[in-house]
């Protein structure tokens, strides 16, 4: 079985993570119920003639994928695999609203053809003239992790040398407000803003200079009780022959809702490990856990993350093994294990 190397990871988020040096130098504090991503100058990545039809999700996806491929020094990947919880929700909203306003007449094609979940992967493939394997996973908050599993299996089995993998979701204009209204009716609602972003990486079986990290394992579990999560994590580590004492940092997806109990169980288990959280600063959306993947890669690469991300931190530390754990509303649990090469 081949090793699944991470050649590059880039992220567009509500923080300035897509900066020239690909690090966040200063945290931007946000208030309000939703926060847009810090959008780069898309003209630098996408021809104007194509840019005019693209929704934020497509723009973010195409720009992030271009930079990820550039950093990995790859022109055309063997496959493109993306994950998206809501897909191109902005064009979906446009299309459905036009449908209602015009009483099912005068429907224009652009919003319709770009309203699907696989628009981003499709546009990336068109831009690269990449006719290889192209798949999008729409699986709630494990959409990105589902894409990772697919890519990892193909790389480890030797079926593909280089795969572009990404997670992308956009805010849209309307649906997100309804989500917020419904959420506020909950007894203990999500305490972080809703947001958007795109994280793309290149996974490869080739060991070469400049490798970021190794994607050791990804696992997804639909349901488990809070009191069982510690056992689930232990079993995950055991299956991957990693002792809990080897974990240098754990990145958790706390969002302040009633289901944060899952994370509290894990924090108790690792009294000396560094813990990081991110949703307060980059918001909650179905593929926000891909930002944790970017953070994990940053730690292993030896880059500095702002102190605000750390809920517990040792004085100085070298990160060799980083574990990511996320869940949404008590389901769609994901474990991702990253290690140094």
């Amino acid at each position, binding site marked *: 079985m081949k090793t699944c190397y991470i050649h590059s990871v880039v992220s567009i988020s509500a923080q300035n993570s897509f900066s020239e040096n690909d690090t966040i130098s200063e945290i931007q504090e946000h208030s309000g119920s939703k926060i847009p991503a810090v959008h780069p100058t898309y003209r630098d990545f996408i021809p104007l003639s194509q840019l*005019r039809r693209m929704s934020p999700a497509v723009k973010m996806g195409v720009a992030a994928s271009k930079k990820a491929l550039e950093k990995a020094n790859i022109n055309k990947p063997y496959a493109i695999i993306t994950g998206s919880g809501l897909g191109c929700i902005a064009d979906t909203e446009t299309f459905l609203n036009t449908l209602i306003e015009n009483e099912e007449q*005068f429907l224009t094609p*652009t919003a319709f053809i770009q309203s699907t979940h696989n628009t981003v992967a499709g546009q990336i493939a068109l831009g690269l003239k990449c006719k290889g394997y192209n798949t999008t996973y729409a699986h709630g908050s494990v959409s990105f992790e589902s894409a990772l599993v697919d890519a990892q299996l193909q790389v480890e089995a030797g079926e593909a040398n280089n795969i572009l993998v990404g997670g992308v979701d956009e805010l849209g204009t309307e649906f997100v407000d309804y989500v917020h209204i419904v959420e506020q009716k909950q007894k203990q609602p999500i305490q972080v803003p809703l947001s958007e972003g795109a994280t793309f990486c290149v996974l490869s079986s080739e060991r070469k200079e400049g490798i970021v990290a190794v994607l050791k394992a990804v696992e997804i579990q639909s349901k488990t009780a809070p009191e069982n999560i510690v056992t689930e994590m232990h079993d995950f580590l055991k299956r991957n022959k990693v002792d809990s004492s080897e974990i240098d940092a754990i990145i958790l997806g706390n969002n302040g809702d009633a289901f944060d109990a899952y994370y509290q169980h894990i924090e108790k288990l690792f009294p000396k490990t560094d813990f990081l959280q991110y949703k307060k600063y980059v918001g909650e959306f179905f593929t926000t856990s891909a930002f944790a993947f970017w953070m994990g890669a940053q730690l292993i690469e030896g880059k500095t993350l702002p102190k605000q991300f750390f809920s517990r931190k040792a004085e100085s530390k070298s990160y060799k093994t980083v574990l990511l754990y996320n869940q949404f509303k008590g389901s769609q649990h994901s474990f991702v294990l990253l290690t140094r090469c």
Partner: protein
Amino acid sequence: MDALKQELKENIIEQLNLEEFTVEDIDNDDALFGDGLGLDSIDALELIVMLDKDYGIKLTDPEKSKEIFQSINVLAAYITEHRTK
């Protein structure tokens, strides 16, 4: 007719998201497709829907749309002659 030409330019810029263009950038004789504004087949479908929705003109013959969408002048003349609203 001049008001219609102005309206068409505004609608084309807005509906086709031609962010880099202003009304002043589009000459009445400029080719809308190809070397002019550089519109493509998806834009043609958008324009066909616009004619139906805004002016009550239903285009069913694709060859006809090629003629009509030559320029703002040609388009405005066709709308003036055939509009039902």
